[in-house]
């Protein structure tokens, strides 16, 4: 029986395994060095904040794997020998595969800052990182202040986590406004204010120069590049993005770029070796307007769903549909469908509406020549994925979308609706513009 080995028990590895099992009775082994069972990385913050226990982050009960005849192996792969189709483990043993799927995810970026490997410095990606935060920032007596470096989606989660335990947080963000490389000004500005309302010391436009240590090799302060200011702290979170977790593959003959290079079929340069999820890099550049490396939950899952078909004899391309994503900034939920870039590109315009309470807003992007609806960002108002997906496929124009916005509303029953305000603002906007 064909033996499929998957390195990585994250969302992409587990999805491909589940779907291969649905389609076939091949022998499946999932290898991971991180945890015994699949857990949801996206929920790490809730464990620290006390909303959940770690076991709640595991989507399947432990009998699930045996029942579905999926073997789990804990171990760290240190070398892939493609000639003999063998995995070598750091623990000394080895395993033979017929087909190999690399789904090793990401690791936090470190940009060579002095002091970046001190005790009390960590990213937030693996379960071990969470244990680090727990050790060095358990409460506001042990940790008098924490500094977070890098203003992205993980940075803000870490900031929320630490302040949930009453730890004062200084948040260093390189951009002049939070996540402004992705979010348009109006939204980014609203999030800046929301962060400050949570008593987080948000420092916009600042970079980290170095991290200083005390006599025990533990972090004691950081220095800001621009001002030279020294901020005493007991924990530093490095959240300046992630990159593919592929160092151990460098000794093999699989072609690497920033990630594992794959074609549209998710095949690597070596036969019978595939890569999916955060660690895969599209060799011909991003699909559609996507990036070559897509480090999000959904794309990992979709790659897994696609690759299972190929592995089971129905070779198909990875063709993701319309882009969507979501996140939460402290108390404000964010969803996006289609494409809204930070600045309108050529022949594009943004319509922005913000509620006076400063916690809800939307930005709609459309084509100024054809009026085609291109995408929407929504904050504090839930929208229906299915409806926007359909409208994007049907290439609705922006007027249609604005007229029918109520159809896409997904807020709980009895919530206040804002479609009328939004439509009025949109019409006035067209007149004044």
């Amino acid at each position, binding site marked *: 029986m064909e033996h499929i080995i998957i390195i990585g028990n994250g969302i992409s590895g587990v999805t491909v395994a589940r779907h291969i099992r649905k389609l076939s009775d091949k022998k499946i082994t999932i290898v991971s060095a991180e945890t015994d069972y699949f857990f949801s990385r996206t929920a790490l913050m809730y464990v620290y*904040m006390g909303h959940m226990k770690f076991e709640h982050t595991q989507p399947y009960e432990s009998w699930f794997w045996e029942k579905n005849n999926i073997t789990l192996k804990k171990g760290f792969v240190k070398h892939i020998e493609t000639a003999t189709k063998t995995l070598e483990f750091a623990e000394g043993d080895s395993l033979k595969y017929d087909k190999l799927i690399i789904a090793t995810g990401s690791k936090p970026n470190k940009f060579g800052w002095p002091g970046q490997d001190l005790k009390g410095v960590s990213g937030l990606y693996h379960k071990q990182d969470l244990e680090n935060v727990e050790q060095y920032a358990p409460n506001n007596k042990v940790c008098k202040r924490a500094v977070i470096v890098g203003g992205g989606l993980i940075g803000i989660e870490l900031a929320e986590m630490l302040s949930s335990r009453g730890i004062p947080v200084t948040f260093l963000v390189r951009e002049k406004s939070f996540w402004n490389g992705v979010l348009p000004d109006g939204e980014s500005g609203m999030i800046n204010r929301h962060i400050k309302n949570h008593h987080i010391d948000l420092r916009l436009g600042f970079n980290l120069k170095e991290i200083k240590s005390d006599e025990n090799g533990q972090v004691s302060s950081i220095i800001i590049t621009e001002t030279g200011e020294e901020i005493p702290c007991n924990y530093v979170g490095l959240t300046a993005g992630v990159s593919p977790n592929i160092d151990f593959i460098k000794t093999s003959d699989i072609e690497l770029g920033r990630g594992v290079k794959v074609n549209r079929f998710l095949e690597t340069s070596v036969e019978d070796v595939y890569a999916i999820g955060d660690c895969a890099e599209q060799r011909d550049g991003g699909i559609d307007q996507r990036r070559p490396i897509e480090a999000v939950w959904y794309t990992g899952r979709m790659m897994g769903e696609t690759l299972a078909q190929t592995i089971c004899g129905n070779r198909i391309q990875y063709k993701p549909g319309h882009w969507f994503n979501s996140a939460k900034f402290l*108390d404000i939920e964010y969803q996006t469908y289609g494409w809204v870039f930070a600045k309108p590109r050529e022949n594009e315009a943004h319509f922005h509406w913000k509620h006076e309470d400063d916690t809800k807003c939307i930005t709609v992007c459309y084509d100024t020549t054809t009026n085609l609806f291109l995408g929407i960002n929504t904050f504090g108002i839930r929208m229906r994925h*299915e409806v926007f997906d359909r409208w994007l496929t049907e290439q609705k124009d922006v007027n249609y979308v604005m007229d029918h916005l109520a159809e896409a509303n997904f807020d709980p029953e009895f919530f206040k609706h804002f479609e009328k305000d939004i439509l009025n603002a949109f019409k006035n906007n067209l007149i004044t513009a």
Partner: protein
Amino acid sequence: MGTIQRNMSLTGDASDHLNTLQKIGTIIGFGGLAIIVLSLFNNFENNGLWLTISLLAIASGIILYARGLYMDKLQGIKNHGVWFKSISSRGFLGWIAGILLTGFYIILYFFAELLGLGQGVDGSNTGIVGLFDPLSRLLSGNPASQWFVYGTLYTVAILAFGIKFLMKYKHNRYEQLRTLSVMFFQTAFAFVIPELMARLNSDTFSLPYNDLKLMWPLNYYAFEQWRVDQFINAQTIGLFFLILAILIVFVVSPFLTYKYGKRWYCSWVCGCGGLAETAGDSFRQLSDKSMSAWKLERWMINAVLVFSVVMTVATISTYLGYDPNKYWFTKNVFLTSVAVFLTAVFAGVAYWKRKELKKDALTGAIGFYALTIGFIVLIAFIDLSQIKIDAANLSFGLNTKVYAGDAALRSFYAFGIGSIFSGVIGTGFYPILGNRVWCRMGCPMAGILGIQQRLFSKFRITTNGGQCISCGNCSTYCEQGIDVRAYAQKGENIVRSSCVGCGVCSAVCPRGVLKLENGPLEGRIDANQVLLGNDVDLMDLVNNKN
């Protein structure tokens, strides 16, 4: 993991001590409780005054505490530290609270004289029950009973913790409205109106205590002879209530459940649900989500339902049997019509819903149906009232009477289901098993509404395409132990008989994935193999092939 500050607070910020307002609230609230406890040992001069002070102190203590907790928080989800706090994570305080509550229920149900019931001169009340006399007199004109004490405390708890809940969910109008609704129904329907109606009673006219929203089979004594007789004897108005009760069970309830799901009752009206959602809110995360708990639930709740149907049928048929001329129909007509009715319902479901029923569900349904019909046939042939049963053998000696067969059935139900399950375990174990064990595992009303919700209702929880990140907040905070995530991460709608529509899964979801709504029956349950967000070809391919 690590050294999280585990403080001993009732609730509150794990990384922080109780703030001043919370401390004041705690002291005042416990002070109010202390007055009640003191009344056990010391008869106050002025019960009315002390009772007022006590109840006000309990309520304002809870409300002050909640203000301290939520005052300077922005609108949003407030679950910080839930699993660190001793009280809400089955810690030391949780167990203490569980033991105290359980103890209270045992005394209430079986040793009410310890509370002072009828312990004074000429059977007047002393102690705690005596403390509540003035309020009872004010409402119904009669002295208090242990049930009046319980009803009052119950209502105060729903009101005060309801206000706490309103503060916690100030950003969520669904949560606010349904909480206001249970607060209203508890206060008006369960407490004030029936007490006031008792004033109408005289030597020639009397109505049983009638909480209109408490319907059969949750109200398992709804159709017992003394009640039915009282209604019939009270002429027009009594008949009106009797017919209303029957209409609510067989017409109003099915209609509302069809339109809105069982939530219209369980989360908007019901008193048990009301207490669970307010006083029990801090314990919702303790429900068991495992597959084995689900299996137990399906077996248990339907068994209780069968038991309650059989018990009611036996009760009614017994008094129809020995009083054939007093009522409109005879024992045999009654039994036959019940059997015909059940068979028709069962056959209809088995035929029209055969595609929706999984094999194990169908097997279970056939088993429970056969059991019910079997009992009904049995009742037709034997005269239950001739059988004598010694209760001491079954009740650990708590009850030493000897009963006739039908009465034994009733008493056993009242003891096992009505007292032990719904009270001692259902509420006493809040801090251990979560706040809705009774609603999930034991309530026959929930059983009926659940079957209907699963098969004939517009209600579902819609999953928002491919947006789920499998974080698990929804499953953790589902008080009914439904593994909501298991559906959401597959892009499948949640249509489960046990869902009481509390809406908390939707509230706590950080990605806006879940929406409770009523919609058309087609496409209500749609299981996708591949989720939205993928290329349409792949979705077609996989979803249609299977």
